[in-house]
């Protein structure tokens, strides 16, 4: 390979892991937040169901 | 709509013309979905002694703090001695005194310094004279140069009364003033109250049903932020009042 071209592209390969890591980490953080929202939603729904059940039991009495 | 009327009347004229100590219209206090006070309306004549009763969390203290301009209402209007608490809070503040179970004193200032501080902040015309007069009235003249920290609970409470009366308020708000007082101290407190009743209106918040009933000319019963009863105490006897209290609280 042409030494000049090698020089031109010399930082590309070493940089690649960092670029990949940067993008991966960004998406990971975003994904973590989505997970927080989803688990929060699930927990709320569960509480709602429990409340409904308790209310129904109360009415039957 | 009532607010427009309040605004147009000049503060001084309104105060002079006031023939009711409190005028509460549709007062509510809510945050989020929690309602601390729910649409209260009542009117208390001047010179009256109102006792506010209710269980824990009924909104007694919240109501008192709104009357004292320490908390703001969510809706409705309140006028204290003819001054609207939203439009003229400073006018209201100049006319009320507040005594709570916490003394509002600086423990590291002497009795005299504590009173002088209050007198000067309120702008009492002759602060030194006034302070001496009040110290004599609460029988603390001999202890005037002592730190408030060194006072017993009863003495502290007496000093707190002097502090609350320093600017000659026409309405005195009392928030559980008997908390932590021994029987002797609360006797003295009662006697002191009695001497002041002729010239001022009072609002008392208390757990003690009997005490409230004995002292009051008007009774107000709160239940979960709702007005359960507002009546002159002459129209009730203690048995029916306490029955009503336990019905609402227990129910």
């Amino acid at each position: 390979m042409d030494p000049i071209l090698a020089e031109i592209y010399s930082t590309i390969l070493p940089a690649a892991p960092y670029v990949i890591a940067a993008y991966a980490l960004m998406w990971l953080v975003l994904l973590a937040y989505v997970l927080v929202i989803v688990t929060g939603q699930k927990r709320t729904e569960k509480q709602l169901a429990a409340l409904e059940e308790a209310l129904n039991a109360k009415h039957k009495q | 709509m009532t607010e427009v009327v309040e605004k147009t009347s000049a503060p001084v004229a309104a105060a002079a013309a006031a023939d009711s100590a409190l005028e509460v219209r549709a007062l509510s206090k809510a945050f989020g979905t929690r309602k601390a006070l729910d649409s209260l309306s009542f009117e208390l004549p001047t010179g009256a002694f109102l006792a506010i009763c209710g269980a824990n969390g009924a909104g007694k203290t919240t109501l008192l703090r709104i009357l004292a301009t320490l908390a703001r209402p969510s809706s409705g209007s309140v006028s204290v001695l003819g001054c609207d608490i939203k439009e003229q809070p400073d006018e209201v503040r100049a006319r009320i005194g507040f005594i709570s179970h916490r003394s509002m004193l600086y423990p590291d200032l002497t009795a005299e310094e504590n009173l002088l501080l209050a007198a000067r902040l309120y702008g009492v015309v002759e602060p030194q004279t006034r302070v001496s007069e009040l110290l004599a009235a609460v029988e603390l003249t001999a202890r005037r140069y002592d730190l408030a920290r060194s006072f017993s609970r009863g003495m502290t409470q007496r000093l707190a009364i002097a502090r609350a009366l320093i600017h000659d308020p026409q309405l005195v708000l009392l928030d559980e003033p008997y908390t932590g007082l021994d029987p002797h101290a609360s006797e003295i407190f009662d006697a002191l109250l009695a001497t002041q009743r002729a010239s001022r209106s009072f609002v008392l918040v208390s757990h003690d049903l009997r005490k409230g009933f004995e002292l009051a000319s008007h009774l107000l019963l709160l239940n979960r932020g709702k007005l359960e009863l507002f009546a002159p105490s002459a129209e009730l006897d203690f048995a029916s009042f306490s029955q009503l209290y336990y019905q609402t609280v227990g129910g």
Partner: protein
Amino acid sequence: MTATEPTPRATPSVPTATATSAAAATLTPTATRRPSTFRQYRILLGKDLRREFRTREMLTSMGIYAVLVLIVFGTALMQASAGFDVLPVAGGLIWALIVFTSLLGLNRSFSHEKEEAALEGIMLVPLDRSVIFLAKASANVLFLLVVEIITLPLFYFLFLSGSALAATFGLAIVPLLVGTIGIAGVGTLLATITVNTRGQDVLLAVLFVPLVFPLLYACVAATSVALLGGEDMMATFGPAVALAAAYDVIMILVSWLLYDFIISA
């Protein structure tokens, strides 16, 4: 002392009574004239100064704490070589000292207001809420300045006596003053918030340090160049002091505007 107490003007209406029979003490009606805002400010400031003069609570605790921080600095620098010159980092060390010490003082500045709910008593007086802020912030500025006046010579004595201070070292007073005012302003607002929270001491530090970071950065830069001197010293000193002053103005203005909401909550 009490035997010669002046007879009150209103004596006739105030009969002496024994504790058991608190007889009718009809008070004479009294007139009030609302004092000017500035007078109320002076009364409140005077109250804090009088309290502090009596208990010396804040000054002693801050002073001792400052000395302890100096000891920690000394330990940290002990292992450096004999000829190690502290001067290049002196500006930073001085500000670390001031920030830690002021945190301690700010935490204390509202504790006596809460002890017996005295602050509530002040709130019941017809006065502008921002007066409370200005009086408390002024008291904090004064206390901090006193502590600085005591500890900074000590800092010089312990760390800089062997260094060649630049001729411009006197200029360091400017960032010290500007920084102290900013710290007291923002700190008073935050202390009002944190005094009502769980774990108030830690929380004040958590909120305070990042918030004053810009001020700290500018003041460290200005103090360092003032101590080090050099030809282009003014190129750093000027903008640093100007920006620190701008921070003071903006932050104190915002704190002043927000204070009514905070203290009424």
